[in-house]
């Protein structure tokens, strides 16, 4: 199963994870 997130955010939004990285519920994915 997969979850796709699509969202609008300001240009300066940055992802806090890398492709292939394992994540857990509640872990920061990105911030401003």
């Amino acid at each position: 199963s997969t979850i796709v997130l699509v969202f609008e955010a300001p240009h300066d939004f940055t992802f806090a994870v890398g492709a292939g990285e394992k994540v857990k519920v509640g872990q920061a994915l990105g911030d401003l």
Partner: protein
Amino acid sequence: LADAWQNTPTTWYPLPIAAGALLLIFIQYRRKSATKEVVVDEHGNEVIRLKGPWHVHVIGALPLRNMSRLWGYLNSLELPVWARPVGFRVYATIFGCNLDEVERDLTEYRSLGDFFYRRLKDGARPIADAVLVSPADGRVLHFGVIKDGRIEQVKGSTYSLDALLGVARPGSPAPASVVFPKDELHEVNHKHFADINGIEYSLHELLGTPTPSTSGTSTPTTEAPPRPPAPHNHSSTKHGERVDASVPRDQSLPDAVAQDVSLASEVGIRPTAERRDSFTSVRTKPGNDTFFMVIYLAPGDYHRFHSPASWVVERRRHFVGDLFSVSPWMAKRLENLFVLNERVALLGRWRHGFFSMVPVGATNVGSIKINFDTDLRTNVGRRRDHPVGTFTEAVYAGASPLLNGQPLARGDEMGGFCLG
């Protein structure tokens, strides 16, 4: 034939260079036209077809939905109590589950399907203080900025954002309204924290009314840790945006509406200005980009999903599709994988604009549950009755008429994937 096979001499001779060059040009032309070919219907919407190498077509010919349901049935069979700990430990060893964080004793899970949809102990998943957090345990497959309305599946292969989220077609039926029992609704709302537009509150504190004692179906299991309510401030947020405090507070309104007025005012959502009666496609505001992220849940992962942000879910679109595997192996080979598969697109908004979350089913996990939407039924019916791109839509305006949807806070449990 035998004589010809054995006695015909093999004579090798060089092809003319020009013929070889023409062949290469032809192959290159075919490859380019295949990657750029976008078939559209009479309304200009892209027609999604199965495209990929031969083994993808072989898999596509299998009765995947029936296989998924059979898989679900087999895994719903009750296991003898003595076999449960051993069986689940073997499963955990093979698929890498951490049994230390499982909520219940292993003997209490009646079947593998029950264990698969397990809850975790309180506090097992702390919620980070960031605007966007992971909705699930899994692996980040891909992320980035959406350009020209297309999402990159893998390098060199894209799919349409409109196809993923759905496009309202002329003559399509109006969305159904999901009915929310008011008692349950109040329970859910009071348990939520709202930090839309940068203000963080316990709604219980915010609204100043006692929490009803009725039980709710959407009670979060992994809640954000209690936070002290922010100072009551109508005029500004930490991001410097102005909050419209002009929403009237009419004491004569019924309690539920008065609560919604209060909530809308406090979180800075202007209901009448921002409400969308229909959703067509994403239009990014100036100064913003539209981002995407794809998270893959492996068979051993915790399979409930949580809210990745504080947002309001306005509607859901259920696409009855195929149930291909969504493993990275398949994602590299099957174009439009996430558009072909059965999925539930939850559409709404957060403080920066549009927000959506799309759980996509797969062969082994064809069922998608949404806690606040008991009308939703996935992995039922026949695939052939639902052409690719069509969907059934429901709106959640009944959850909070003024917010026009179901409010969710970061980390709230939203639903999950079940076997079969």
